[in-house]
Every structure is written in structure tokens, then in C-alpha cells.
């Protein structure tokens, strides 16, 4: 019997105070898609970083096609045929697709780059992947899906045998995800072994051949896809049976508190009017680029609006800056935590305190004690896992970063909270906690606005759904429980 394409045996990795990986085994066959699942902090990224040469294991063995290898650097991993595709692409925005595909491995003739040959080869590669666009387009003008295909073409061009895809679908729209899966099928035909990291169960069932689950740094289970169920997978990840994905709640909407009329900004938001009640979770659904985030930014004063008025509890608000919005009791949890929600190199406590400093002033001076006390209260309430208040926010896992962002806004006691993709890239257990928190806030009579691209989540959590398409509101679903994903999609593409 031929040896598998990739074998990782007994991988151990210890950090001071944490066993990140404990005796983890992983096998990958050629032409197979292995889904790697687990909660945030379960060790998925660490395992993949070891495979990619970014980290060294403390113990264990890696074999490729039966041969023991020593992966000491990302360069070495690449030369062994291991390609990593992260959520954040490693493309040079100003260079063309072809130039990016061949970056570092240019086709040379007498030290001169052969642009024509590169272009032709790129076109062929892209066509094999089912993509058809001009390889001379600068990457900054490509859509996210196209950029992703450039990354994959680059891996193919390197003659990669093992492809690691780290949450590739998180940044894609539904249609783009379908195309990505088609690309993955193409790669499978070419005999590549692929490791697919993802949180969306539906996608795992569509794309994977086998699923491997990690929990707390240890191997928790490995199943052929046709032998496992949704519930079984969630249980395996969380380590206990989970009653349901969404917590139950009896909505009790009160009076209209937030009222926006005729909000417009260029072509991205056009004449949007909405009313949100206290105690109501109002979801904004739509395709990527429908203007949901842009609408949220107008409601938060982050962008200047061309027209429109905003009222909270009958009081008109000018909202010319986020500072004004915060002062009026509006908070926005941005979709991009790393770039907009947190200052990654600063400590968790500094991040937590930033919008709340006025609460810690004693005679005009900041009181470290008051800040620390407030920090401890909310971090405990949100169950943020950290080594201490000084731990840089960038060192937290994705779920804990999101919880930290929530803690900081909870301490602000906002009357209106806008959650933009609050569960993106977050594991099942933490998602549940975030849903519960939204319920609690709504029950306190606050206005909760949620933007989400995950339709099951929108249907499961919201009391009312507004659908946007190309900057306009195209529909409203007042009883999500009786509605369906199809109903939302029909409004979203209308």
C-alpha cells in the first residue's frame, strides 16, 4: 500500500503555560479534502503553522509521501510542495494577476522576465480553475474571489501537492463560495491533498471527504463525511451535547427608539429609512456589497451622510463623528476586528478602556484602579480568556478578541448596539454566548441591529429582518420563524 501524501505523527507543541498541541496525528491522502475543525484556540492554526514552517514542533514527525521531512521555514515548506492560503491574501496590490502568480518564480530568459509566457500560463491556470479574467488586471481591481483564485493559481504554479485553505469562504459571498468549491473540485482532480479549515458546517458537508476535529490541542475525532451528522460534529467540537444552535427567546418589542429617514451616501446607500424598537433584534441581510456595513457606518457617524435624519427616542442626532454617536449612546462592533475594532499591539485593558475613559476620570485624572475594576467585571462577565490585563489584544484568539470588543462596548452602556458580522470566524461555543448576550441586551430594552451574511443565523436570531440590495432596502421579513433562506435570497438579489 502506498504511503499517504502527508502524515503528521505525535505532534507536540508547548508554549509557556499552555500545551497547544498534544500528540496530534493527521493523515492526508492525495486527491482528498480534509476538513479541520475545532473551536478557536483548539490548535488548528498552530498545527497548520507547524506544517507551513512558521513554528517548530517540540516533538513529533512529519512525513511527505513516506519520507520524513524537517520543515524549518516557510520557504522550505513551499519547496516541499506545501502551499498555505490565508484569509488575508499575500498579493501585491499593484502588480497584475500574472505577475503575482509568478512572483518569486518568474519565467526568465537571460535575466529578463518573459511577460508573454507568464500571461499565457496564468490564463491557462485560471481557466483550469474555472475563472476567466484578464491576467493583466492589477490585483487591487480584482474581486475577493478572483484574488483567491490568483492565490490558488500561484500554488498550482509552484506545483504544490498540499494546499491548506484557512477559512477561505469567510470573505466570500454565497455565489463566490460555490465557485470556490468548484475550484477545490478541480484541484482534487489534479491529485492535490487539501486541508480545509472552516466553521460553517453546511460548507464542510459540501466540500470535505473527511473531517478531523481538534479540541483543546488534542485529537477529538476523525470521521468520513458520510458517516457523521451536524449534531455529532458540534458535540465533538464542544465536548458536550449542544441542545441547539440558537438560544430560545420570547421577543417583547417595545416602542420605536431608533428612527432613520432617507439616509443616503453616494451610490452605496440610497434613501434608506428604518425604524427599530427597543427590545428588538433587527437583522440587516443582503449580499456582500449591498450597503449594509455602509448603512451601519452612517448610523454610527463613521462616514458623512449626504442626506437623511437620525432620531433616537425622538431626539434628532447630528452624528458627525463616532465620538458624537458614542456620546448619544450608539455603539458599533465592526466586522473587521483586527483593523477597526482593536489596536492589536496594545494591551487588552487599554483596548477595553478606550471608549470608556470618561468613566474612570477622578478630578480630571485617569484612575487606574477604576479602570482595572471595570475591566475585571466585564471581562469576567464576557468570559474572555486572557493571561492578564497587559496581554496584547493581538495575542488573543479570534473568539476572545470579539468578546473583548463586546466587553468594551458593554461597559459603555449603549442604548443602540450595531453588531456587524459578530460571529464571523468564531467557533460554535462562543457563537452561542454571543447570541445569548444579544438576547439579554434586547430584553433590557436596548436596540440591537445585526448585520450577518449567515442566513441560518439571521433566521435564528432576529425578530425582524430587513433586506438590502445595491444600497436600497428591498424588503422586510416580519416573522423570521415562518420564513426561509430562499425568501431572503429572493429579496437580496431583487
Amino acid at each position, binding site marked *: 500500500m502506498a504511503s499517504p501524501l502527508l502524515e503528521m505523527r505525535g505532534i507536540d507543541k508547548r*508554549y*509557556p503555560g499552555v500545551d497547544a498541541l498534544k500528540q496530534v496525528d493527521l493523515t492526508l491522502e492525495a486527491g482528498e479534502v480534509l476538513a479541520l475543525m475545532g473551536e478557536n484556540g483548539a490548535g488548528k492554526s498552530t498545527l497548520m503553522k507547524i506544517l507551513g514552517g512558521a513554528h517548530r514542533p517540540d516533538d513529533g514527525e512529519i512525513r511527505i509521501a513516506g519520507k520524513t521531512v524537517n520543515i524549518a521555514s516557510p520557504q522550505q515548506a513551499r519547496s516541499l510542495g506545501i502551499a498555505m492560503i490565508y484569509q488575508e491574501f499575500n498579493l501585491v496590490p499593484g502588480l497584475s494577476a500574472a505577475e503575482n502568480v509568478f512572483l518569486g518564480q518568474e519565467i526568465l530568459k537571460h535575466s529578463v522576465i518573459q511577460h508573454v509566457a507568464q500571461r499565457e500560463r496564468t490564463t491557462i491556470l485560471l481557466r483550469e480553475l474555472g475563472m476567466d479574467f484578464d491576467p493583466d488586471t492589477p490585483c487591487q481591481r480584482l474581486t475577493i474571489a478572483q484574488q483567491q483564485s490568483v492565490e490558488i493559481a500561484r500554488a498550482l504554479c509552484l506545483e504544490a501537492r498540499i494546499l491548506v485553505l484557512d477559512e477561505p469562504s469567510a470573505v466570500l459571498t454565497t455565489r463566490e463560495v460555490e465557485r470556490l468549491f468548484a475550484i477545490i473540485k478541480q484541484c482534487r482532480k489534479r491529485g492535490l491533498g487539501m486541508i480545509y479549515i472552516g466553521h460553517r458546517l453546511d460548507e464542510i458537508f459540501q466540500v470535505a471527504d473527511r473531517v478531523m476535529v481538534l479540541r483543546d490541542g488534542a485529537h477529538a475525532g476523525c470521521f468520513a463525511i458520510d458517516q457523521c451528522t451536524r449534531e455529532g460534529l458540534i458535540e465533538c467540537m464542544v465536548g458536550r451535547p449542544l441542545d441547539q444552535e440558537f438560544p430560545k427567546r420570547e421577543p417583547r418589542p417595545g416602542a420605536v427608539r431608533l428612527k432613520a429617514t432617507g439616509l443616503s451616501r453616494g451610490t452605496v446607500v440610497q434613501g434608506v429609512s428604518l425604524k427599530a424598537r427597543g427590545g428588538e433584534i433587527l437583522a440587516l441581510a443582503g449580499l456582500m456589497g449591498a450597503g449594509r456595513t455602509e448603512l451601519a457606518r452612517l448610523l*454610527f457617524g*463613521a462616514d458623512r451622510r449626504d442626506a437623511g435624519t437620525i432620531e433616537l427616542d425622538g431626539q434628532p442626532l447630528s452624528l458627525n*463623528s*463616532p*465620538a458624537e*454617536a*458614542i*456620546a448619544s449612546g450608539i455603539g*458599533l462592533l*465592526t466586522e473587521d476586528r483586527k*483593523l*477597526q*475594532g*482593536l*489596536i*492589536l*499591539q*496594545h494591551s487588552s485593558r*487599554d483596548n477595553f*478602556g*478606550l*471608549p470608556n*475613559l*470618561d468613566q474612570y*476620570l477622578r478630578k*480630571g*485624572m*485617569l484612575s487606574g484602579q477604576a479602570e482595572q475594576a471595570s475591566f475585571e467585571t466585564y471581562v469576567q462577565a464576557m468570559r474572555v480568556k486572557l493571561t492578564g490585563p497587559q496581554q496584547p489584544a493581538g*495575542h488573543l484568539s479570534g473568539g476572545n478578541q470579539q468578546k473583548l470588543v463586546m466587553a*468594551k462596548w458593554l461597559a459603555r452602556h449603549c442604548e443602540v448596539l450595531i453588531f456587524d458580522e459578530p460571529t464571523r470566524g468564531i467557533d460554535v461555543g462562543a457563537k452561542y454566548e454571543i447570541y445569548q448576550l444579544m438576547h439579554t441586551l434586547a430584553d433590557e430594552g436596548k436596540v440591537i441591529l445585526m448585520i450577518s451574511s449567515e442566513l441560518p443565523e439571521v433566521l435564528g436570531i432576529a425578530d425582524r429582518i430587513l433586506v438590502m440590495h445595491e444600497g436600497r432596502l428591498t424588503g422586510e421579513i416580519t416573522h423570521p420563524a415562518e420564513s426561509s433562506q430562499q425568501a431572503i435570497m429572493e429579496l437580496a438579489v431583487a
Partner: protein
Amino acid sequence: MPRLNSQLIRVLSEYGMVLMLLLLGLFFSLMTLTEQQPTGEVGGQQVASAILAQHSPEASIWVVTRDLPSDQAFAKTLTRSLEAAGYDRIHPVVGLPRNARAALVQWQDQGAKIDAIAGTEVTSSWLVFADLETSFPEVGSPRIHRPTPYRWPNFLKRDNLLNITNQIAVIAIIAIGMTTVIISGGIDLSVGSLIAFSAVLACLLIREVGGALDATAIGMTLACLGALWASAAIGGITGGLITFFGVPPFIVTLGMMLMASGAAYLLSGGESVYQVPDRFVWLGRGTTLGGFPNAVLLMILLYFLAHFMMGRTRWGRYLYAVGGNAEAARLSGVPVKRIQLSAYVLSGALAGLGGVIMASQLKSGAPTYGQMYELYVIAAVVVGGTSLSGGEGKILGTLIGAFIIAVIQNGMNLMNIEPYTQKVILGLVILLAVLLDKLKQRGLGRH
């Protein structure tokens, strides 16, 4: 082993710069260790105790000194302590060797005896005392007392240490503003030229408006405040261009650097403005508390204030947030533009203050002041551990950075290293400091 390593890295990152300063101090102390002669009060005390131990109160004692302040302090201390112990036959001799010879001739003629001669390092070795027994046998054979020499580094002498602080005051004060600008994510290249601009403007205002050589204290203060205000206004324009028009700080401040320098030359007609009263040097050279120059006291005060502002006010925290991630800060309610603008205004104002201090130290204002100072100031900030990419840094680190630079310059001067070599070494030290900082960050990143 890796744990020990990370501990070491932590300690180095927290206290690395202090350690470097201490090591530099130690190094220059060893290199400038020389024989020192106690003078003044210390010398007098030392000689007095020797005489008390070796002579009875009836002894006749000469105290030989030159007509110099330090020699007179020596004589005064010595005489006072001897008199306090009951010695009443003390004879002062003041002046040159020929005065001593005349006194000896006189005593020989009267047949008086001398039991001891006390002098400073210089007077006690006058030739006239070397051959007493042959030239003046009648006065007896007095014992000669002088202070015992000791070894002490020139670097650590009080005057030298004060000199270092005085030298660094201008750079250190401007570095406060630069630290805030760099932490907020910018850079200010115009501070060197603002020194010249402010120095010229202050002196011009005194000459033209304040009454030149007859200017009053109030007039001079107003002139200095005027220069300071003008520099702050220039900082405000710089900050406005950066925040409201989005021009990169490097470009804006480069332009301002040229404009401020040119303005200084235009205002002064390319010449030094020196028509200021003598009292104008009060700020730069005068002393008040314990012999500390006023400029140094001002520097210490400003560092206290800045340290407090950075750590205990909202403004300070916002400054770090803006430099760390301006968009995240804005979405957390931080008035990003106002904070950035305030950093440039502060930087301009402090550069103006630096110019006023320099004018006071040199008692004139010239457009050539402050050349290259922006680079020394930036070097002090960076050596002090502030990251040029913004969001990180400590104000006291900057003070240490400024001192490291001053100590290196001063130490090399004491060691008689020529200026060209000094430049090379200073550049190396700056690179080394930044390299250490990078290594530290990498170490922390891998934790």
C-alpha cells in the same frame, strides 16, 4: 533555557536603556579616572584635621593662599576650624610667592618661629618653601601641610555632570514634543529650524519692541512668549495640513523646516541679533535651586508634566491609540484629528521654547542655531525606545535617550576624541539602540 531567555529579554526591554546609560557612565568614569586635588572647603577641612592631629594649639601656623575664590574658601574653612579648636597663632599669607618671601624675611628679622605651613596644592609647593632650612634657618623647620590628592573620574565631577544636563536641556525639552508626535504616528522635521526661528524672533522682539539693552524682565518675558506662540502657531499649521488635507507628515514638516529656516534668515538679515540685556541669560545660564541651571529645572518640570499627561489623562491615552490604529481609535470615539493636531502644536511650542533657551544661553539669536537638531531629537526619542511606527513609547525613555546621547558626546570630549570620530560613534550607538529594540520586539513577539 527559553524561559530564562524570555526573562532576560523582558528585563532588557524594561530597563535596557537605563542599563545602557549606567554602563556608558561607568565606562567614561573609568576612562577619565585622574588624580584630583581637593580644593576649597574640602581641602581646608582635610588640612585642618591633619594639623589638629599633629600640632598643639600653641603652635604658630601659616596659612598660605593665592588671591583666588577657591583658595580663599580653603583658607576660610581651615582658619575657622583651627580657631574653633583654640589655635590662636594663625598667620594668613595671601598673594604670590614674593609676598611669602617678604613675610619670611620679616619673621626671620623678628626672630619668630613657624611650626607649620598650610597651603593648597599650588602654594605648598612654591620654591620658597622648598629650601627654608638654608635660606631662613631662623624661622625653624616648619612642617608643610597640603591636601592629599585622590583619584576621581573627571566625568563624575559635579561641574561636568551639571554641564551635561545643561547641554542636553534644549534637545530634551524638544524631544518631549517629538515623542508625542511620533507616538501619534507622525514625525516632525521642522523642530531644528524652529529653534533658529524662535531664537531670532525672541531677540528681535527684545531689540525692536522691548527696548534692546534696556529691556525689562516683563518685556523679555513677553518677547519670549511671543516667539513661543509663533512657533506653536507654525506647529498648528503643520498639524492642520497633515490632519485635514492628509499630506504625509514627512513632507509637510520638511517644507516647514525649509520655510522656518528661511524665515529666520530673512528676519535677522542673516546676522546674529545680540542687542539684548545681560539679564537675558537668566533662563539659560542662571541658577536658582541648589546650583541647578534654570533650563535644567525647567526641563525636569516639563518631563514630570509630560509623564503625568501621557499616563494619567485621556489625552495621553488617546495619543497612543491614534498612533496604534487611527481607524480603530476613531471608531472608539477618539477625536483623532484633534489629537494629532495637538501633538504638532505641542512639538512646535516646545521647539520654540528650545529656541528661546538657546538664545538665552548664547545671549543672542542667530539663524544658524539648531542645525541638525531635529536629527538629534529624533535620535533621542528612538534611542529612548519609542517606535517610529507609532503607538508605543515612554516619555521617560526619551529623557534617558537624550542623556545617552549627551553622555556619549561629553565622554568623548573628555577623552579628547576628535569630532569626526565622535560623529561616527554616535551614529553607531543610535543604530545599536534601534537594533536592540528590534531584537527585543522579535523576542516578545515569539514569547
